């Protein structure tokens, strides 16, 4: 928390348009990713949130607009240069068979290595640190496929951490995990941001997003509907716009983070009738 916060944004998306199989999926996206902050992108399935993340990760070429990393255009960087500045963890990643945890995490140092610089003291330090930060040091010798889903996800996180990039992009890092491991992974990610990294997460779980995001970005149909602090933007209106669901938004007793409680169908009908009556009474 004591790190000096740099006010330069880590990544800036300007007027970004993107197509998927010639169909436009992102329209005029503008976004600033701040260092030391967790930015969470939420939205219904097919809203373009993963494509946006892929555009930021240099995996999907935008049809229009720019993605800037500091002073540089992301697409002007060579792949290895880009990989030293941003790391991506795709959704449900698969490892080559037979790889050990240590072996996987060592691959995170690839962008910092060369043909004749295959393992520096810096690589060693970064890998050891990444293993510690995700509490998988004791598993380093184990084959990855023997581990549970939660442990495996921590190992993947360790791999992208070992990359030691100022920007981390994570696509649904908790989608395969139970509640305990979800909270564990998200807490670890929060600690990374607290240490000064910029983190962007794509999540489909609005509740977790509202709780863990410094900046919440809500997307639908390839556009950003709202962005800002969760408690400012998460309203029943936003939930309806995003998911076409009636919901109550409560404040969590602990920290006041918004909690979204969908309304069951019959209750929604009754409430709709109420609203109609109210409207009728007070036009």
């Amino acid at each position, binding site marked *: 928390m004591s790190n000096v916060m740099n006010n330069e944004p880590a990544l800036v998306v300007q007027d970004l348009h993107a197509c998927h199989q010639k169909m436009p999926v992102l329209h005029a996206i503008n976004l600033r990713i701040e260092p030391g902050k967790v930015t969470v992108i939420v939205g219904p399935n097919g809203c373009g949130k993963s494509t946006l993340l892929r555009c930021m990760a240099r995996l999907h070429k935008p049809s229009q607009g720019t993605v800037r990393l500091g002073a540089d255009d992301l697409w002007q960087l060579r792949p290895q240069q880009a990989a030293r500045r941003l790391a*991506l963890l795709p959704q449900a990643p698969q490892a080559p068979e037979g790889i050990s945890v240590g072996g996987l995490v060592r691959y995170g140092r690839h962008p910092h290595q060369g043909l004749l*610089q295959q*393992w520096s003291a810096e690589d060693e330090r970064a890998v050891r640190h990444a293993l510690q930060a995700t509490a998988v040091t004791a598993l380093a010798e184990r084959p990855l496929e023997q581990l549970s889903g939660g442990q495996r996800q921590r190992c993947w996180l360790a791999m992208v951490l070992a990359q030691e990039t100022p920007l981390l992009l994570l696509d649904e890092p908790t989608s395969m995990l139970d509640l305990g491991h979800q909270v564990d992974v998200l807490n670890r990610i929060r600690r990374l941001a607290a240490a000064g990294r910029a983190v962007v997460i794509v999540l489909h779980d609005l509740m977790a997003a509202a709780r863990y995001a410094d900046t919440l970005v809500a997307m639908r149909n390839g556009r950003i509907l709202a962005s800002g602090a969760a408690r400012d933007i998460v309203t029943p209106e936003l939930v309806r716009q995003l998911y076409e669901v009636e919901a109550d938004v409560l404040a969590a007793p602990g920290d006041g983070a918004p909690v979204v409680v969908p309304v069951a169908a019959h209750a929604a009908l009754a409430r709709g009738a109420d609203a109609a009556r109210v409207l009728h009474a007070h036009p």
Partner: protein
Amino acid sequence: MNAPSSSAEKLQPLVPAASMEVGLQLLRCGRFSLLFARRSAWASLGLCGLLAAAVAVALMAGSTWLSPQQLLSVLRGQGAPGLQLLVLEFRLPRILVGLLAGAALGLAGCLIQALTRNRLATPDLLGVADGATLGVFVTLISSTAGMFGPWWVGPLGALGAVVLLLIAAGNLGRRGQRLLIVGLALSSLLRAVTELALSRQELMHASALYAWSIGSLNGRSYAAAAPLAAGLLILLPLTLSSTRRLALLRFELEIASGLGLPLRTTQWQALLSAVLLAGLAVGVCGPIAFVALAAPFIAERLVGGGRIALLSAALVGALLVVFADTLGRILLAAAELPIGVICNLLGGPFLLWLLLSERNKEIS
């Protein structure tokens, strides 16, 4: 964020400890460092030893058997002129050609398998063998004397087939899978063209092409070894220096790109190197089946840990071809069996074993 570990780091020697498996060896000199698995190094050394032994046996074996003493004296430039001629002018060149062709095939197979992440993928599936055969056939029927064209006809045919394949497939596809499927169709088309044209030729041409298309090292001279040696001299170091990048191809493409892999460059380089290597081998020796399939697989078993074993694959390929050729020369007393036949004989059971052992692994 490094605060908690900094004091511990001062105590750590430069030799990796915590994040390293036991089997890895680090060599460091100033800012240069090499990291490799000890088992790979031992495997390569062991294979070199085996290869030397196989070459020695191949030099001694045949219709006239030599004793080790005789071989040594011939190699020292002594001994009967007849033996000198036999060893240095007949046996050594064909063994050299076989060794180089095997290495090229093993390496090419390893590259194609890494590219497609498919253990059953070989250069032949891309039409390399059938393209080369067609190329050789065209020179054969256009020559009145029923002679084969120069050595570069085969590689040229292979390259032509793959260019045709790339045009037909449009692009590499995400994993080169598209190439394999289109390649399968294209190579049967090429084979059909060859066979159709062959059926309209005289028997002399047909039997000459048959002798070539079965794959044989018979009568190969030092001149035949030269293009193979040159190709390997360029492509082997190039390929070995891209080992680290090829290893990343074992990941999903998103992860590989995220780790800074120049994806297209790596894929194209692997494809082109594999086609040239396999094309050279096929052009010089005719199509030799199964080496490109078996060598990478055996090498991976030897090296372990799911590593990309390029050097070992090349060595295993060389060993397989030298071994199979020697077997072909001594198995029947009357006539020699072409190496293509031996490889087919050994390859069928091998493929079966491969498929069964893979399935057992899935079950367990």
